[in-house]
């Protein structure tokens, strides 16, 4: 058994070195395939982060009439927190609302002056509601609209809230769909690139495979070194791909963050470095082995 393994390794290594141009072409194409794969991983992470940002920034606020006592609002909050669709409710009193408004309007003297002229706090207390999923907002708004405390609320158009929420939901779905389609397309592309390159490489060696068959070699005796060669090509391609990605990420990350600060490609890449390398290597070896296996079958039927 040890002798067979040694022979398989020796033959695979010889094939890799002696057919160096073929090996170079296969490794180059596998590298491109793996870079597509890693781009998918990073893109998928960025799109998920974008969806999370949208979700994080989505909430609805309901404003209470000024004569509603604070205890009533807190009771309503406690009732609402029992709703399984709601993740978090924040109570903002009239005083807190005024403080927030003052902070926000500190750079706008006209607004500040208008507030002073009023002489009293015109702002209403509110409950800021965050749903567990963005899809739940529509139902929460419906529940509030049909609730017993509906008449305690300032008449606001809850439908407007709903329209914003629906738009955000549509965006999330759109991003997910585009991301999914991109993943499928890129996966097909990477498999096709590597498969066709290895198929051409094996085609150029079909004469050798036929000779091996005629000398009396069994299919697995012939396949073994070719499959290992494919795996070695995948391994080398993975290392090359990660070496190319490192400076690209260093260059790209600050530029991407200047567009959307919450999306840090660099943070994801470096914190998942070994995971990405492992996935890349396994996928590279898988592509190398499967493509070689598939491409060889035709010539093993001699």
């Amino acid at each position, binding site marked *: 058994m040890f002798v067979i393994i040694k022979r398989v390794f020796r033959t695979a290594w*010889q094939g890799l070195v002696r057919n160096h141009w073929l090996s170079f072409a296969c490794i180059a194409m596998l590298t491109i395939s793996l870079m597509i794969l890693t781009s998918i991983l990073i893109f998928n992470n960025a799109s998920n982060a974008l969806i999370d940002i949208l979700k994080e920034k989505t909430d609805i606020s309901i404003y209470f009439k000024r004569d509603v006592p604070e205890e009533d609002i807190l009771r309503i909050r406690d009732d609402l927190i029992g709703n399984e669709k709601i993740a978090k409710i924040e109570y903002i009193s009239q005083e807190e609302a005024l403080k927030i408004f003052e902070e926000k309007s500190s750079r706008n003297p006209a607004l500040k002056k208008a507030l002073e002229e009023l002489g009293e706090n015109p702002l209403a207390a509110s409950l800021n509601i965050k749903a567990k999923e963005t899809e739940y907002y529509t139902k929460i708004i419906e529940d509030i609209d049909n609730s017993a405390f509906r008449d305690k609320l300032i008449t606001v158009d809850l439908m407007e809230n709903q329209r914003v929420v629906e738009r955000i939901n549509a965006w999330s779905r759109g991003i997910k769909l585009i991301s999914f389609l991109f993943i499928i397309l890129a996966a097909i592309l990477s498999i096709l690139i590597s498969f066709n390159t290895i198929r051409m490489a094996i085609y150029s060696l079909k*004469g050798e495979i036929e000779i*091996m*068959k*005629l*000398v*009396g*070699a*069994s*299919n697995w005796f012939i396949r073994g070194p070719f499959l290992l060669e494919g795996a070695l090509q995948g391994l080398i391609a993975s290392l090359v791909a990660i070496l190319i990605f490192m400076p690209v990420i260093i260059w790209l990350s600050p530029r991407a963050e200047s567009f959307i600060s919450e999306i840090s490609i660099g943070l994801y890449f470096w914190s998942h470095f070994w995971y990405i390398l492992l996935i890349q290597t396994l996928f590279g070896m898988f592509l190398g082995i499967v493509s070689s296996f598939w491409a060889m079958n035709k010539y093993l039927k001699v």
Partner: protein
Amino acid sequence: MSLIYFKNVSKAYNGSLILDNITFEVGPGEFISIVGRSGVGKTTLFKMLIKEERPTKGRIFFNDKDINKFKHRETTFLRRKTGMVFQDFRLLDNRTAYENVAFAMEVAGYSEQAIKKDAPELLNLVNLREKANNFPHQLSAGEKQRVVIARVLAQRPELILADEPTGDLDPINAWEIIKLLTKINELGTAIMLATHNKEVINTLGRRVISLDGGKIIRDEQEGRYLI
């Protein structure tokens, strides 16, 4: 007991009959030449013997076993026991002469020690010890053919099928190959030689099967090239 038995074998390609109802036997250790014009079916005959092609009709026996009933494992065994020498050599181009011989021994299941001992000896037998580390493109046509013979011998076959082995060689190299084949035959291996070379056939004075129009027109023990 015969080594090879062709029983009423016919072979057609796209409806065109190449071999028509061929029957003959080859005994162990026999030297037999197959002669005939190009396209008469000599190579097809050999290809059917190593199961690279299947007969359209009839049966072929190797050591009294029907080779068309052979499974994958038996087919690989058949090919190890039936060494092929081709006109176009068919060496593994990215392996040295030594590695080509060693590959055949690995296929046959020899140990590393046996390969290290026997492969140089086999190359020595065909006068190629100094060129053991040369790749096929660094060898002349005659040298390539001698590597092929060393590779065939490495598997200790019961039968060698030589298909126009001298076709691409000059007369001196051609005679060296024929001499090598007769020497191998004297040591007990059966040889089937397909050739156009009238001089070789007439000098050998061995059994000759003449093919014409897909049929055996002559099968003589001390035959001559008469086509």
